[in-house]
């Protein structure tokens, strides 16, 4: 109030008191609201995912005790009588993921170190985009490749009865290797970014002390980029766990509780993919089972994503 009185008595009273817009600019407010709604949609999506998974899951646990589900070793929800022990398909998912990572981590990290520390500028500028482009190969192609190429090759080279061989037509190892090949570009590309972000001063310091390139890569650059590298592996891991088409095509749908790489198992995503085909009746126990499995899968990947986001943030803080 005082300010206004002061303004009224001064010679510049005729001018606007403050620099403000001539009109209320309702348009700007509408746009603000629309944009906020767009951003809010992501929260809505997450909420919708959680609700769509939790509601049927809670109903599912009304039919099946939670202990039987989490710790049971018999999985046959479509059999009579049905059994709901989820361990066989969780183990199935994890063993496919194990072989995928066993292939993808050394190959992916090796490629990344080569690209970041050894390759000439020209090689790096050619190979990096190729990797990014190949990351677009559809998952159905990897599944088909596992079925018609990897499995027959494994069958040819597999020593008799080694690890329970020879491999079946649908087997864990072929699916795992195909998924591994699929996530190599992810791991290589992100790890390369992390290692390239390490300031060159660190490298030059090490070279000045007479260190070899191999030591600079493994003892200087690798530790400095470690959180980014781990984040890339976690991202690959969460891709592998959530991958559906490859396990559906090449690993099969036999819920075996086994660690053997040559047998057919059912992964969690494969169960969802074979059972949720659109024509299952809502409200049936089998329908709810799908969502219980999906919630477990969602929980696993969410945990890993949170970890990865945190690690990436740390590696950004250090060098930007």
């Amino acid at each position, binding site marked *: 109030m005082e300010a206004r009185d002061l303004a009224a008595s001064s010679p510049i009273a005729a001018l606007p008191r403050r620099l403000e817009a001539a009109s209320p600019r309702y348009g*700007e407010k509408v746009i603000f609201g629309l944009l906020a709604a767009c951003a809010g*949609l992501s929260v809505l999506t997450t909420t919708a995912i959680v609700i769509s998974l939790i509601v049927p899951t809670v109903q599912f646990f009304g039919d099946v005790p939670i202990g039987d589900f989490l710790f049971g070793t018999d999985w046959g929800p479509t059999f009579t009588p049905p059994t709901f022990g989820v361990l066989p398909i969780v183990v199935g998912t994890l063993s496919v993921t194990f072989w995928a990572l066993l292939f993808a981590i050394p190959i*992916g990290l090796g490629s990344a170190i080569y690209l970041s520390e050894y390759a000439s500028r020209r090689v790096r500028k050619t190979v990096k985009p190729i990797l990014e482009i190949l990351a677009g190969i559809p998952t159905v192609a990897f599944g088909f490749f596992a079925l018609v190429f990897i499995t027959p090759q494994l069958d040819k080279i597999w020593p008799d009865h080694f690890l329970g061989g020879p491999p079946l037509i649908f087997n864990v190892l072929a699916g795992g290797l195909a998924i591994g090949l699929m996530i190599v570009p992810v791991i290589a590309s992100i790890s390369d970014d992390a290692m390239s972000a390490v300031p060159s001063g660190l490298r030059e310091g090490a070279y000045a002390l007479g260190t*070899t390139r191999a030591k600079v890569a493994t003892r200087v650059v690798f530790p400095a980029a470690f959180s980014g590298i781990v984040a890339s592996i976690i991202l690959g891991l969460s891709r592998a766990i959530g991958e559906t088409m490859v396990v559906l*095509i090449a690993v099969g749908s036999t819920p075996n509780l086994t660690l053997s790489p040559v047998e057919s198992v059912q992964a969690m995503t494969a169960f969802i993919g074979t059972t949720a085909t659109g024509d299952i009746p809502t409200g049936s126990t089998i329908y709810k089972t799908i969502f219980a499995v999906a919630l477990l899968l*969602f929980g696993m*990947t969410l945990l890993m994503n949170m970890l990865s986001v945190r690690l990436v943030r740390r590696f950004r803080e250090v060098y930007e």
Partner: protein
Amino acid sequence: MGAFEPRTARAEIAVAGARGVTAEVLSTQPRKEVIRNAVFAAILFLALALALAGLGLLIGKNVVDGHSRLNLDLITNNNSSDPLHAGLRNAIVGTLWIIAFVLLFLIPLGVGAAIFLEEYGSRGSRFTRMIDLNVQNLAGVPSIIYGLLGLEFVARAPLNLGYVVLAASLTLTLLVLPVVILASREAIRAVPDSIREGSMALGATKWQTIRRQVLPASIAGIATGVTLATSRAIGETAPLIPLGAATFLTFVPSGPGSEFTAMPVTIFNWVKQPQPEFQTLAAAGIVLLIALLVALNSFAIWLRNRYEQRW
């Protein structure tokens, strides 16, 4: 350098000798280290070669297996239970319908969210940080779970659209939305504040600044994100399975309310058939799909490199 010219052969030898002696005296690297270094480099190179060879083999294997069906019939014939006359025509039309609606939703929603987060959301505010974390987590949700979301919320109540093109489009939009949001944010963030301040100083409103200055300056990055998202949406099979895509459709989808099929879904159906002719057809279909996606991704990366602006 000029002082040493012209060089005689004798001078060359002398320089080379001196250089060798200097290197010998100054080098602290024992021979063992040098060898170890070379072996390490060879192993790394082998890893990269193996990765590229594996991916190349995947493409090559499909080309070899499917080349006999890689002809015009593949795109002019509809799908059929007779493998000798089956083609991808209805699947291609289905994919086009689905992607048309995906783009319709994806661009305004994705770019809008990115603008909000970068231009309006105050950095560090709780709402912005929550959405930020949310988007990053959504990017990591397995695609089949989006399919279940589509089944529960889009195909059935509350949206109750049924198993149609529009349901597939909505589901895929949600799936690839994080890709567009993250890419657009990067692009918008790269526009320097001086441009915004200049615009505001001339009396432009915030929205005028965004529309006339920020968006045109970041359009290449946004287009890259949209292209990558589109290619992902075209190649995804898993989220469509719970939406009833596993059925063997032979007719051409006619619009948003029509039952749908898509290229990867039809290929998946062929892979599952026992007849070897269908396997050949599947290989040919995969070659076509990979060619399409590789072309889209190459375009995206070309766009990024060509129009990458350094301020």
